[in-house]
């Protein structure tokens, strides 16, 4: 461990020297995202957020011209992610590592950030512990427990007594399920049943039937975005679960724009916790959505905001550091930073370097003929509960 640290210091010194030679020239940002493969759409939206920010705020900050180097990691592939991060550092000599849609990739690249003392901005990956991998890392998206812990408390407080949970059987699903169950129990609720769903699951009828048979008054769902929310919605509609007065609750991806389109009226009444929706009512967000639509002909989502805010953090940190780019300076500049995001007021926790933001509780309603997530409640300044409990 000692050797590792010594080595890291020597390395960082070399790189800093190399960086200094380049100072006043470009600010290189290496972005690692799954541009191809099954997570490609997520990467597209996130990258759009990055591009829009640069477009709106100019490509020069603190006298340095921004240059973005994009690398495709192709999916969940920490070995590739780590290699790309290494290459970005040693070959492309980037000043900042950014992007990171998926937890394993972010964790692997975290090693590089720590070793090379590089500022790293996680713009999506949502597992709590990621930010503990490197002291030079911050996050501008959210953590899964942040949303689900809040949701569990809220549901218990608002009349839910007996909950059935169903979650995708992999890391993020487990995180969400556990956070919800813990919070729900602590707030006085009872978990009457739980089921874990295979990750690649095209049909939900059997699980919805189980939930229905369990006699719960709340059904909590955690599924990844993509094809699954729509498929789930259809199963819910066919089983007529909503008609029986059971509340369906979950994390925001469940009722994303695309999911609502293909769910149709089956989605009505679903309650979700999330940190952003394009319908959020604020001047900042209206401008953001308008600009985003003009540029990319679709609505932004949480990934877009993660990328957009991630760039904001980089710009502001570099400004504050007056163009210096070594990891310690930039991470210090970020600690405690607060700003107005399209999602509302957000800040970076000075201790954990993780995001603090508002969690909105939304219900699917029909407005002007369209299904939208209408905000019905909000919890402000939510920190990641896992790291809060660690201390």
């Amino acid at each position, binding site marked *: 461990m000692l050797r590792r640290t010594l080595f890291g210091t020597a390395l960082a010194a070399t790189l800093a020297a190399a960086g200094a030679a380049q100072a006043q020239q470009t600010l290189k940002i290496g972005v690692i995202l799954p541009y191809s493969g099954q997570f490609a759409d997520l990467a597209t939206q996130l990258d759009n957020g990055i591009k829009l920010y640069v477009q709106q705020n100019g490509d020069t900050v603190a006298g340095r011209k921004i240059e973005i180097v994009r690398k495709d990691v*192709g999916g969940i592939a920490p070995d590739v992610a780590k290699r790309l991060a290494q290459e970005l550092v040693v070959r492309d000599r980037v000043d900042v590592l950014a992007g990171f849609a998926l937890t394993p990739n972010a964790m692997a690249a975290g090693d590089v950030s720590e070793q090379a003392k590089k500022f790293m901005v996680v713009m999506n990956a949502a597992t709590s512990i990621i930010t503990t991998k490197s002291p030079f890392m911050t996050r501008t998206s959210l953590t899964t427990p942040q949303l689900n812990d809040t949701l569990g408390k809220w549901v218990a407080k608002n009349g839910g007594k007996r909950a059935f949970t169903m979650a995708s059987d992999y890391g993020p699903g487990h995180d969400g399920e556990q956070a919800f169950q813990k919070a729900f129990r602590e707030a006085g609720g009872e978990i009457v049943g739980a089921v874990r769903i295979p990750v690649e699951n095209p049909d939900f009828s059997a699980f919805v039937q189980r939930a229905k048979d369990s006699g719960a008054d709340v059904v909590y769902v955690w599924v990844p975005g993509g094809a699954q929310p729509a498929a789930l919605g259809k199963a819910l509609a066919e089983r007529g679960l909503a008609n029986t007065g059971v509340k369906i609750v979950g994390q925001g991806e469940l009722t994303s724009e695309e999911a609502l389109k293909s769910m149709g009226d089956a989605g009505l009444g679903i309650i979700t916790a999330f940190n952003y929706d394009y319908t959020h009512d604020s001047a900042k967000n209206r401008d953001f959505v308008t600009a985003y639509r003009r540029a990319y002909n679709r609505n932004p989502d949480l990934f877009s905001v993660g990328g957009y805010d991630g760039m904001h953090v980089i710009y502001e940190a570099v400004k504050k550091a007056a163009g210096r780019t070594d990891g310690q300076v930039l991470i210090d500049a970020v600690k405690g930073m607060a700003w107005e995001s399209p999602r509302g007021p957000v800040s970076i926790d000075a201790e954990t370097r993780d995001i603090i933001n508002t969690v909105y509780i939304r219900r699917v309603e029909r407005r002007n003929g369209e299904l939208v997530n209408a905000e019905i409640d909000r919890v402000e300044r939510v920190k990641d509960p896992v790291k809060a409990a660690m201390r």
Partner: protein
Amino acid sequence: MTGAVVRPLPDPHAFLARRARWSAPEILFWLSTLLPFWLFPDYLSLASQIAVWALFAISVDLILGYAGIVTLGHAVFFGIGAYTAGLLGKHGWGEPLSGLLIAATAAAAVGFLISFFVVRARHLALLMITIGIVFMAREAANALHWITGGSDGLQGIRIDPVLGRFEFDLWGTTAYGYALAVLFVAFVFCRRLVNSPFGLALQGIRENPTRMLAIGSPMRWRLQQVFTFSAGLAGLAGAVLAQTTETVSLESLGFQRSADVVIMLILGGTGRLYGGILGAVIFLVARDQLSDVNPRYWYFWIGMLLIGVVLFMRDGLLGGLSRLWDRVRGRGA
């Protein structure tokens, strides 16, 4: 056969010795693998992963190219090797070389068990059994997430410096040296194997199983032996990747990895050991370059390359090259 000229009989020993001898291009090739240290010091991480994939491709070549067993499930053994090495590193056994051996042994042991299922089947059933096994392995690894870390990947792997001296660094210098050394040693073993009577028997099975029965060969046993050895090699490759990157994910035993390695092997050419190495170089360099040009649609060009090679070069790029070489030499003579 007029009998007027008495042709001298050829010397079989000289012929076989020539076959087994290291040729000048081979020696040159292996010397050239050292060039990246000086020519492309910025690309050593990539080079180390190419060496890992090359080793993996060679393991597949032994069973596909030499013994004729088509598999789309070999990542199972790659993954077992990777997880074994990773788990050792995570739980305090950071010494890399012994970790490699343990990982390869574990993969070979599982390979031996699975060989009973594989050597009986042929055609579509064989393909589907190998695919089925790789999906089962992935499901199992996800279900055992308290051991494997599930979809978050195995975290907290710490590997000691190689031989107590060479630490794995950011530039990938140690990683490449290490991966290259393992590749070379494994290659020497494989090279001896394919030039041995056992290697001849494997080619016999590929060429004509009926004839192998007629000369009394215990074919299934031979196939099981080579499958086990190949599984061990794949495990070795997985272990090197886990050690040099200090990370393992579920995808290391996924279907995609199984398919990619076969594609590399086909691109390079089967049944020649070097085909796997060439294929790994082409695939990964092409991927690196294409995805830099366009991170989103590079798979299109990989697909096109694959179709082109299968369509026009039936024995891969190496086969095409060697035919070209023969023609040039034939004209010269």
